[in-house]
């Protein structure tokens, strides 16, 4: 569509709980085949933004276009990977069954999953390295394995745009690598992926676009342009203990000496900055 080249276009998105605004007038434009991170401090409204775009929360104002049409018409193009902790992992079901749930939309009401759905689910499990666990009860999975099951479930949706809520949260290194590989494969296939992300240091490495959020949108665009120290300061306020020394940030703005730089050994820390309680 020449007049609107964006995969996702949200305008004036505002969400409030009671009278407290959680998202203030957020505009977002994401081109196709982009890996975009949403970063921001706790309570910045990252999850809320995703949920508002997906219509899981009713926004007080604003609209969302997916490939130039209202979200409601384009629902089938969108896949969602909720936070791992949002479901009960003691639910009596197995891995293959959970992955097949990703096919339920194309099945519609009443129709049951069959051999085709099984085959697609197994294929997706193969892609995330979880095929040997197909018959495993979900309560027996580790956190990283749970996350990969969720990703496989998103893959079988065969969506054009994916929203993932903290897929890297508390996963092991193997899973982190598997997720990154998967993200790149998705981009290769022309898909757009929006990821709520916590680790600032890996943003330039994993993503090509980034949105900095703190109730309002601080900045959104290519990592090289907007992932700057100044923007990070705006988003995180005075709460940054140390910042990623990314080549992009350096190119934009030389690091100020009074900010302690991360040592490479801190990489295994889940977060790039100390979190205050949400």
């Amino acid at each position, binding site marked *: 569509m020449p007049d609107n080249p964006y995969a996702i276009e949200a305008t004036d998105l505002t969400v409030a709980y009671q009278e407290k605004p959680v998202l203030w007038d957020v505009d977002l434009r994401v081109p196709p085949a982009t890996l975009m991170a949403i970063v921001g401090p706790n309570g910045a409204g990252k999850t809320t933004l995703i949920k508002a775009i997906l219509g899981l929360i009713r926004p007080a104002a604003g609209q969302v276009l997916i490939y130039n049409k209202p979200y409601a018409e384009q*629902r089938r193009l969108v896949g969602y990977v909720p936070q791992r902790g949002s479901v009960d992992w003691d639910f009596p079901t197995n891995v293959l069954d959970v992955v097949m749930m990703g096919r339920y939309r194309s099945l519609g009401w009443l129709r049951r999953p069959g051999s085709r759905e099984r085959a697609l689910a197994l294929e997706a499990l193969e892609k995330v390295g979880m095929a040997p666990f197909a018959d495993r009860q979900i309560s027996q999975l580790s956190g990283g394995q749970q996350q990969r099951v969720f990703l496989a479930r998103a893959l079988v*949706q065969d969506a054009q745009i994916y929203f993932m809520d903290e897929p890297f949260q508390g996963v092991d290194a193997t899973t982190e690598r598997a997720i990154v590989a998967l993200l790149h494969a998705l981009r290769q296939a022309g898909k757009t992926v929006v990821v709520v992300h916590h680790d600032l240091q890996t943003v330039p490495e994993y993503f090509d676009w980034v949105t900095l959020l703190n109730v309002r949108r601080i900045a959104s665009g290519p990592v090289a342009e907007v992932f700057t120290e100044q923007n990070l300061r705006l988003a995180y306020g005075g709460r940054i203990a140390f910042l990623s020394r990314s080549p992009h940030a350096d190119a934009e703005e030389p690091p100020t000496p009074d900010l302690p730089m991360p040592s490479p050994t801190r990489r295994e820390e889940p977060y790039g900055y100390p979190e205050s309680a949400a």
Partner: protein
Amino acid sequence: MSPAQVEIQLIAAITAAACALPGVFLILRRMAMMSDAISHTVLLGIVVGFFITKDLTSPYLVLGAALTGVLTVSLVELVHRTRLVREDAAVGLVFPALFSIAVLLISRYAGDVHLDTDAVLLGELAFAPFNRFAPFGSDIGPIALYLMGGILLINLFFISLFYKELKLATFDAGLAASLGFAPWLIHYGLMALVSITAVGAFDTVGSVLVVALMVAPPMSAYLLTDRLSRMIALSVAIGVVNAILGYWLAHLLDASIAGSMASMAGITFGVIYLLAPERGLVALARRRARQRWEFAMTMLAIHLFNHEGLPEASQENREEHLSQEVRWAPDFAARVVSRTVEQGWVQRQEGSLNLTELGRQRAKQAIAG
């Protein structure tokens, strides 16, 4: 067995099966106590329905009950959503409110009708065969049998038709919503099923004990299986067995049938809670004990491995040393050593302990993680 006895058992079994079906989803949605609330508040629907139709056997009573069930759940959610009241407290506020309105209405306007509070709370299965269903002048069985049978069929129909949707909305409501499956519709549909089931069970087991039939068999089944479909089938089977055993317990004790059925449901759950093969308390305790031994044996192997071949080995790798240095009680140390010897991890040689090749491998594996 007399025909009445057979009929009573049939009604009891069908009631138990009908309750177990929606009960499975209540358990999985962590809404077990909502069944208690609904089973009481449906009384309001029955009373209002009765005032409108003037007929206690009218099918509109069931409709009224289903609506009150849905109303109960919506009110609870409404009160909870203000964030001033927690969900459990919201249940505790809404359910007595609706129930008390029903009790007031009955005591004020319907004192002379069969709607008395004892029958509501406890039901009386023993009298069920006296109310006959005779549509064309020919007696074809007790009304309760047809009423509960109908409700069982409705539950079976909806749960098998919307099995996939119920599973999805119960496991991951967020995904269900994003896939366009209207989880709220499924939610209220399920609550409507719970409500009509509670109404049907009123006559037979009463509004208190119906909770036992909705919660205990599904909870027992939950401890026995990892598959939702099997959990449903097992819940129904356990419910039916409880009902029939309960009947005979009541016969033996000359006591309330509903009370005996609920007791059997409780006893069955207790037994399964203790003895379930994987998740029962006994299995858990056994597993923990085994892990404790395995841990101790591995610890011993690592200890021996670390000192192996070093000058102090003759000092360190002795059984007496374990109780002094590793701080194991002497008899525990002795048992750990003899277990590792039995397993072929360790050999005793003149009081000192030496790792075998197998034991060395175990130690290395454990260290490597």
